[in-house]
């Protein structure tokens, strides 16, 4: 398998996987604590609509899906806060609207060859050096922000009302978190795809919370678990000749269920 480390596409996938492990290891902690798993699924599916808009308007699909995703998450968040929509209804409507819009817009560009499978389930061959650099830039920009606002985010996740009364600017913080989550989801779609990216937003923290009850241990464990399933999934997929994104998610889910069983069966 060492020959894999001489293949540029595989090294790029490894580098991007390690960076995403750090980002998802931390973000999934808040996604799970704030019970936002469905939100993660909703945001990732809006990528499809954004990609289609980019294809139709001849602009960079990454840029269009980023704008589309951030806008969607912002609107969902505002509608839910205003009481106009429940959380799950808002996400459900945007989720299906975006998928429908994407399919509709792509049907208007019949000549365009669109890698539907790669978009839905990821394609590590499509990861370019620019993608890796962008992921590195997002990681370097995100970590200081998460360091500064970590405890306030944690307080808000625990009890938003008390956090607000105690001086946390909860609305701004919530909007910032949603935008950050949208950004990280968009950059990771190339690797694991729209459908499977939700797993990276949920599995790492779920796994770690099954083992630890102190956030100082939960977050490093989430990062480590995420790195194991991404890198393990990459090697396994090469060995078994299976799709990389799907292999990572199945590996992650199996590890999670085995751990859960071991924790519950422990005398």
């Amino acid at each position, binding site marked *: 398998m060492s020959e894999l480390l001489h293949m540029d596409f595989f090294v790029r996938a490894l580098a991007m996987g390690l960076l995403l492990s750090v980002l998802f290891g931390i973000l999934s902690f808040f996604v799970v*604590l704030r019970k936002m798993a469905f939100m993660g699924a909703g945001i990732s599916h809006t990528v499809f609509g954004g990609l289609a808009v980019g294809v139709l308007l001849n602009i960079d699909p990454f840029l269009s899906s980023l704008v589309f995703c951030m806008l969607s998450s912002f609107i969902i968040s505002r509608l839910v806060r205003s009481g106009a929509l429940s959380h799950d209804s808002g996400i459900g409507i945007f989720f299906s609207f975006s998928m429908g819009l994407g399919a509709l817009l792509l049907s208007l560009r019949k000549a365009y060859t669109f890698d539907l499978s790669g978009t839905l389930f990821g394609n590590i061959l499509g990861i370019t050096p620019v993608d890796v650099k962008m992921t590195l830039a997002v990681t370097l920009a995100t970590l200081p922000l998460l360091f500064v*606002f970590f405890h306030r985010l944690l307080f808000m996740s625990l*009890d938003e*009302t008390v956090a607000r*009364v*105690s001086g946390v600017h909860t609305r701004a913080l919530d909007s910032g978190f949603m935008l950050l989550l949208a950004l990280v989801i968009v950059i990771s779609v190339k690797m694991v795809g729209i459908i499977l990216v939700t797993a990276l937003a949920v599995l790492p923290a779920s796994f770690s919370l099954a083992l630890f*009850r102190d956030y100082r241990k939960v977050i490093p464990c989430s990062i480590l678990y995420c790195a194991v399933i991404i890198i393990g999934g990459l090697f396994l997929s090469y060995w078994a000749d299976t799709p990389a994104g799907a292999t990572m998610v199945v590996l992650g889910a199996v590890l999670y269920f085995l751990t859960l069983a071991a924790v519950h069966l422990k005398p």
Partner: protein
Amino acid sequence: MKEAVVLDRVWVKFDQVVLEDISLTVQERHILSVVGPNGSGKTTLLKAILGLKDPYRGSIRVFGEEPRRAGRGVVGYLPQMNSIEPNFPVSAYDMVAFSRFAGKSLWPLLQKSEKNLVKDALERVQMGHLAERHFGSLSGGQKQRVLIARALVLKPKILILDEPSTGLDAVAQDQFYAMLRTFRDADGMTILIVSHDIGAVSGIVDEIACLNRKIHFHGRPSETIRYDALEKVFGKDIRFVFHDSNCLTCRKDS
């Protein structure tokens, strides 16, 4: 004696009117309990006082300021205990420290003096020895003490508590209310309690207000609460037996 909280003809609505023409004053260094059944508007009243819900008519002042301007450090808020996820991965110490993190600027770590404030707050509620314990593994009474410490660590002038006796047994309730009396007497703190349980609070408070959309009674617990006022608040099918310090018994057939 100064006024800590003043509500002047306050009306609040969501889809329909929830609070109607509420005028209520909480005196400084007093314990006032607002009692009423579920759905009577107690939580909305708290939200209005905390600045989380604006009235559409009338005004609210907290130490002379609008609720949102009263600012951090003036109000300490204790939510209902069951609103907290028991598996949240934090210790009792972390739970209290959150309040100190809330007002941080760019440098997000606590100074030594702030850590000492957290420890002092936990000691104050006799929870210092359990500071490192997982919050979810504490008993109901211990959790309530930790949440009180979280409010105290901001050194508030007024403590606002939402259904604080829920989930506590009789002994834990007594200890809890004794602690509140200490805060009033030793620290000069004003305390506002919202509860559906008139019996639990009548023995320790300076004043009671009965709320069911409107205020139907506001006075000292030693004053006989007119039965028709209680009936408007709690309904016709309820029989009341008070065993407070005045051993006041108020029954429909008496």
